[in-house]
């Protein structure tokens, strides 16, 4: 495009300010540059929207409400046997996608397990390696990803070198009628996805 070289030619000519042809050259160069730059900037910013929008959204920090961002699961604590096999659960919530809001649709899935002592832990079923879905292998009694063979123990810890980090644990709250209560019968989870392929667990 000529606009890239146009400013150069004007500077190389760089005549005295009084010289009318020089002024015309400069003007022509500036105008040509603008004719290219303005549409390119508009188009470029439009294209960058996903990044710009994200930094905007990131600015507004979440409130202090305990249950903010948590989703109630169908499964209840008594469905989980202490030190038993992990149980898969689907997270149902509203999903905003560009111009649509999908009401009560599955937005992801997680693995739940009640550990020794009764504490319930939840893991995102997305593999931290490259984002495939982690399965529970009954035969091996471990978690395993069928894509690149990442494997994890039942506490989510890595058992081979494929995954860059442990399974992504999710915050989980036991509650009654939507209020935290250690003896409650509801499980609420803060469903989040994390960046894949990195050693650090970073929400996306």
């Amino acid at each position: 495009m000529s606009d890239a070289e146009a400013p150069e030619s004007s500077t190389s000519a760089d005549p005295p300010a009084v010289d009318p042809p020089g002024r015309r050259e400069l003007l022509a160069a500036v105008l040509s540059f603008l004719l290219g730059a303005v549409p390119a900037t508009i188009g470029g910013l439009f294209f960058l929207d996903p990044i710009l929008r994200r930094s905007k959204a990131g600015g507004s920090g979440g409130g202090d409400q305990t249950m903010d961002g948590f989703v109630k699961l169908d499964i209840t604590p008594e469905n989980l046997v202490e030190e038993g096999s992990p149980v898969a659960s689907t997270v149902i919530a509203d999903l905003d996608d560009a111009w649509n809001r999908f009401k009560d649709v599955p937005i992801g899935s997680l693995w739940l397990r009640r550990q020794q002592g009764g504490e319930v832990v939840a893991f995102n079923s997305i593999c931290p390696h490259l984002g495939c879905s982690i399965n529970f292998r009954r035969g091996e009694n471990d978690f395993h990803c069928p894509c690149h063979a990442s494997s994890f123990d039942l506490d989510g810890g890595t058992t081979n070198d494929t995954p860059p980090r442990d399974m992504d644990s999710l915050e989980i709250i036991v509650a009654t009628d939507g209020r935290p209560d250690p003896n409650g019968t509801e499980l609420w989870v803060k469903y989040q996805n994390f960046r894949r392929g990195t050693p650090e667990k970073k929400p996306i």
Partner: protein
Amino acid sequence: MKALIDWFDHRTGFKELMHEALYERVPGGARWRYVWGSTLVFTFTLQVITGFMLWSAYSPSTRTAWESVYHIQHELTLGYMVRGVHHFAAQAMVVLMAIHLVQVVIDGAYKAPRELNFWLGLVLLQIVLGLSLTGYLLPWDQKGYYATQVTTNIMSATPLVGDQVQTLAQGGTEYGHLTLTRFFAMHAGILPTLLVAFLALHIYVFRRHGLTVHDENHAPETTFWPDQVLKDAVACLIVLAVVMLLAIFKGAELSAPADPSVKFDAARPEWYFLFLFRFLHFEVINKMGVTFGAIIVPGIIMGVITMMPLIHKFLGEFGHTLNKAFIWILGAGIVVLTTMAIIEDREDDTHQAALAEAHRDGARAGELAAGPDRIPVDGAVELLRRDPFTQGPRLFAKHCAACHRYNGHDGRGTMVVDEAGIAAPTAADLGNFGSRDWMRSVVVDYANHFSWQKNATWFKDAQQAEASGEDVTYLNPDESEMADWADADSLNSADNAENLTALVEFLYAEAALGYKPLDDDERDAFSNPLAADAALVDTGRAVATEGAWTGDLEGSSCVDCHTTLGEDFVALSDDDADGYPTLAKYGSAVWLKDFIRSPGAARHYGEKNQMPAYSPQQLRDHELDLLVRWMTHDYLPSEVHDYENRLTELSGSLGTSAGAGSTAANAVEQ
């Protein structure tokens, strides 16, 4: 005519242009080895034509992409051909490009003064790979969705800017409408435009330096037209024929609509990226991090290829030998890794099961989309979510397969295993639940029919307790009243054979298996292939409720114990129950739902029950509905290849010691 041509030439100079285009020198004569560039240009043209046609019918959004591709593939005139050609020509392009590249390296066509053209070619290579990547996602099926997820996640491993690159490519932090619109803009707009621009430069520079002649003395010099064009045309025709044959006989696959909540264990990249996929499998590579294996190593390889002209410049002919060695080693590595990936997948039972399920889901989605209700506005993904045939097996595997089996497997075609290998079922195999075989087996072979449960810990404990003199109430198939009754010789006598068949037919009719369309018109038009024989049912009813047997059994009817048999199902309270399992509408959806919710009620197994009750918290109402409708075959009938029956495999693997249920297995095998 000549005047007209001259007039046009005067204004455009096209004659000179044509002459330049067609009469390029070909020293050493036209040769087959020069056809590859032309086949690539041809294949690209093919992609432009089929691509524009697909564009005219494609709609990029998460609720219309799969749907419109389905419409193209199955409903539009020659849609399967246009999509098939586009699909296979894309793969042909990758293959042809690899051949082209290898040949350029071997013939030294990258050497000065053609290095710039070599680099232009490498840019074209990247653009074509970009086109395949973006195109793979557009059908928005499970296969493309999950494979592309891996690729965009690899992008995010790019040092410094990975996160931003991924967000930009996806149009947000997660996949959605904008991922499709952006991928489509790249695939159909930006990348093809770049490709045309770089291709023009590539050909222009190629013409400027001429052909890299392999052997000048091979044959007398000729010109591009007609000798080389003839060879090129034949080669292009072969490409076209191969691609069309693949489109007709293999067809472009469309797997189930993408569903982020449904795991897809069969995710694999397109075959030409399998080597990279396999490379990322090496634990030692992963130890170095995703960035290393998926970005740095491929980057270095591309870097070395890019450096080839310089390697030759500085090292001379030795450099050329090095370059050739590199491209051969690289090629061999790709072949070895690809073969490894294919062989390993073929031998991996879990992968094969996942693949089978992917095919089942894909075919079923097509079946439902072509069904009486077509595709709802909320998308084909909802068709599958509401389909008992698709969801039933998954719910069974999740909730029931710890104890029960379905034709020997977990409902989804996989054997249930524990640490010791294939696990023994501890409850009935429900693969033929409610069928004539099931009913007959319950009546005449009760003890054996329910013998799987003898593997259960509760059964063994109860027997032990009983042996030590305790008074235990438990369900022992061998010592139940039903087994005693079924032992009667008269039941199996020839005189009662017809009565027994009629009784079975009656019981079978009570289960009312088969599709029950909700739509009135559809219901009127539907003829249920699973319907019972009405005349036989009447006879059977008399046998069941009045004891219309011959011989010793005469007067001994089922309702003597199971008082509600033949009536509509009512969830009797514990006080009203007769003390025997309720057989009112036994095996039907209404009976099953009540049983699954409360198997321990007096109307079912009472205190002998061992099955956990499934509350709505564990199994939501709509899930129960899907599960029960699957078990009673209440879904749009399917021609899709279902999971294999693995009962014989199960009985075989458990050996003679666990002989329980073997007759049941035989009964199912018929």
